């Protein structure tokens, strides 16, 4: 049962200024984080929750300074542990709308375990992963999403490891909402974040975010007007996987793999289905971002309804109360064998 008093009931309309705190924003000029902040401030009035019921929780990293800039409740945590804080916040008070703001290092390096457990538990929080494929705050070391061979301060001869695919990890761990968006596609970003925030359960959004200081241009291919159409396929529910400058290509499913083909209308078009895509296609879609010669899927991969941990906990408490009655302290202390001394 959700007892949030919605805005409608309260008849008050927020603007983005209502969500702007008095703290100066401290990111490098040109950083992709600004766009994400702007979209968040824009969508919250749409979301229809009272601002005092909103909590932003973060770890440590450039991205994790985000809560300071939102005029809501906020907790700038410690490195990698935002999901732990967020879990406690949401479970202690299920009426709150909780966002987790994290970076690729924060969520997938030191915080990888908390991240996958959060997804598994399906606690109703929304996770925004600012993926700039680099450690920004510590001045540019490769991260678990950096491409192999990356030359950074800590890998002067090239990194030796394959990156994680965050979408794949979230899918495998069981997140019920999984999406990808980009700092430089503000409309899509805003819509995706809004959809994520509205979803009940753990919502995960990977956001391609440009760090113009330490990893400039990492997503240029997908954001540059010249190349983006050929390199991005937008996932839209119940629509085909069409892309290309002229919308002239699509992803064809050969029963095992996707292939890029010229688009032809068919009688039984292959359409995207966020609610019920078979696991085979989910992971095949997720894999595309790792492959050469394929567009990167942007949009919602999965959106499944499932009971949330917080709702189940509330339910369990109610059930136990129903069967045992509301606890009585004195009885509790006197449980077990007792005896009297006179």
């Amino acid at each position, binding site marked *: 049962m959700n007892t949030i008093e919605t805005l409608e009931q309260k008849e008050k309309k927020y603007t983005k200024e209502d969500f702007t705190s008095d703290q100066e924003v401290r990111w490098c000029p040109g950083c992709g984080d600004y766009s994400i902040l702007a979209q968040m401030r824009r969508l919250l009035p749409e979301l229809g929750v009272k601002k005092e019921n909103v909590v932003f929780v973060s770890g440590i990293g450039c991205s994790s300074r985000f809560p300071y800039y939102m005029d809501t409740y906020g907790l700038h945590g410690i490195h990698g*542990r935002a999901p732990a804080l967020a879990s406690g916040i949401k479970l202690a008070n299920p009426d709150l709308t909780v966002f987790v703001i994290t970076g690729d290092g924060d969520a997938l390096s030191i915080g990888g375990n908390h991240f996958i457990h959060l997804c598994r538990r399906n606690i109703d929080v929304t996770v925004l992963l600012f993926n700039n494929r680099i450690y920004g705050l510590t001045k540019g070391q490769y991260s678990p999403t950096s491409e192999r061979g990356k030359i950074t301060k800590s890998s002067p001869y090239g990194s030796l490891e394959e990156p994680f695919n965050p979408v794949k990890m979230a899918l495998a761990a069981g997140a019920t909402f999984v999406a990808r968006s980009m700092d430089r596609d503000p409309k899509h970003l805003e819509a995706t974040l809004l959809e994520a925030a509205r979803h009940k359960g753990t919502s995960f959004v990977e956001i391609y975010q440009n760090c113009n200081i330490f990893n400039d241009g990492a997503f240029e291919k997908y954001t540059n007007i010249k190349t983006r159409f050929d390199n991005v396929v937008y996932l839209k529910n119940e629509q085909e996987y069409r892309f290309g400058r002229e919308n002239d290509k699509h992803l064809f499913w050969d029963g095992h793999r996707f292939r890029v083909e010229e688009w032809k209308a068919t009688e039984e078009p292959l359409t995207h289905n966020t609610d019920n895509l078979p696991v085979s296609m989910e992971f095949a879609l997720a894999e595309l971002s790792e492959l050469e010669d394929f567009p990167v899927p942007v949009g919602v991969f999965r959106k499944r309804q499932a009971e949330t941990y917080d709702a189940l906990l509330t339910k369990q408490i109610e059930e136990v109360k129903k069967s045992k009655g509301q*606890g009585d302290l004195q009885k509790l202390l006197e449980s077990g064998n007792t005896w009297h001394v006179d």
Partner: protein
Amino acid sequence: MSQSTHLDQVTIRFAGDSGDGMQLTGTQFTNTTAMVGNDLSTLPDYPAEIRAPAGTLFGVSGFQLQFSSHEIHTPGDQVDVLVAMNPAALKVNLQHLRDNGIIIANADAFSLRNLKLAGYEQNPLEDGSLEGFQLFSVPITRLTREALVEVAISSKDKDRSKNFFALGITYWMFSRPLEVTLKWIEEKFAGKPELIEANKKALNAGYSYALATEVFTTTYTVEKAKTTPGKYRKITGNEAVSLGLIVAAEKAGRPLFLGGYPITPASDILHNLAKYRHYDVKTFQAEDEIAGVGSAIGASYSGALGVTASSGPGIALKSEFIGYAVMTEIPLVVINVQRGGPSTGLPTKTEQADLFQAFYGRNGEAPLPIVAAKSPADCFQTALEAAHMAIKFATPVFLLTDGYLANGAEPWLIPDVADIPEIKEPLAVSGKEYLPYKRDPKTLARTMAVPGTEGLEHRLGGLEKEDLTGNVSYDPENHHNMVRLRQKKVEKVAGFIPPPDFSGEEQGVLLIVSWGSTFGTVFSAVEEARKQGRQVSWIHLRWINPLPEMLGKLIHNFKHVLVPEINAGQLVKIIRAEYLVDARGFDRVRGLPLQTHELVEEISSYFEE
């Protein structure tokens, strides 16, 4: 015919294989003993292995219990009666048996194979090596089987009942009623009538055997202990902590939230609390200790009483987050059920070696209040106090218990809930100006505003905070000031906690300063020493940080200061640094409670100059 002897106090130890149900047997004996009104104190002592191979020395599980007609606080140094269910149990425990002590041995278990496993070359029941003791060699397995001949269960299951036979013998021996255990058997095995029948029969058979045969000649009676009138129950430390937390949360009007991860010997706190959903208790078994404490901080931040419980290695993992709670000034109770260290150490043994970790196990200057329970029942009161101070001062508080307190039991005078004061620490409310780091001048605590409170939106974090506003600040003077303020806040706790236990003259030759679970041993040793005419004074600290104000004056009035601890000397270092007195440690780091007689000797040495 048997004769009856009055005794003042008795220590009995049940010992057998991990699979022999010795913890259960000891617990039953304890429950019955509590019901008949003796004072008592217990020491379960079990191996780290779940169920080690039968018959091995490392698989021996023991349960020791002292009961008495007067106030006692230790499970006893030396054992009066040893129940040994197999050769390994005898071998491991004989060293604890007093001269002329009683051995009740299951003769059937002294097979060649078992003797070999225990490292005996000959059968000690037969080779005369036990001459200095009163040996009762009973074919318990066979007698149990015979008693259960008509019960329709497998012979393996029948053999499982033999601990009840042994229990029956001891019930006769110490004139105990069978009812408590009979009732327990019915509840425990509800739905399994054959097992109820079997265990009841075995218990009765043991009792009757002892009554009927000529083997045992004496029964013993231990009078009821004279204690404060009222309603009592038996309680272990982990149970008491759990109850204390539930009461604290209700008294504070905040839901209780435990973020935990299993670890010996703290897991039972999680297990206990998980039962109380109908008390609005939320337990969260996290993926690790870091997430456990993190979720507790998150819960506290949004208005619950956030608690986390673990043992040394888990506490080590929590240390970064505890520092975060110091910086954000969010209430948090951190329970460390100490066990033998360092590292994985001796997981099922007791120790007091994490005091320094509680004081200093964080980066930077991160002071916090520390309280330690002195007995299993005191875990209730200390949990209450810890929660109270955590909320009142918006700070993490360490509650130190240990393996001995956690699993040990004693009678507990059940308090009247109505008598326990409310924990009235208001949260900030809408409509007033709110500065997150404005402090109450009396406590230096800040007032929290929790999410959901309109108009008080604000941001917190682990970076240094500006005084008053709580905004991020790298200002040098502000930092210096905040370091001081956080320190002073902890010092202010001194004004809100009960004074420590003190007994004896306010000056003299020797002052003993103790903390935590050594209370029982020190109590007995001091009593004993005083009987021997030593004028020894004793202060037992429950709150260790801040130290009680009176200690500063007191401690200089003594020629010697002795600090007994189950570590290599931790409180003693703090005392020395604080008061510049040549306090000496008395340390035996064996994974066991200190022994009363050793401490008595040590005390005596100060008077023999």
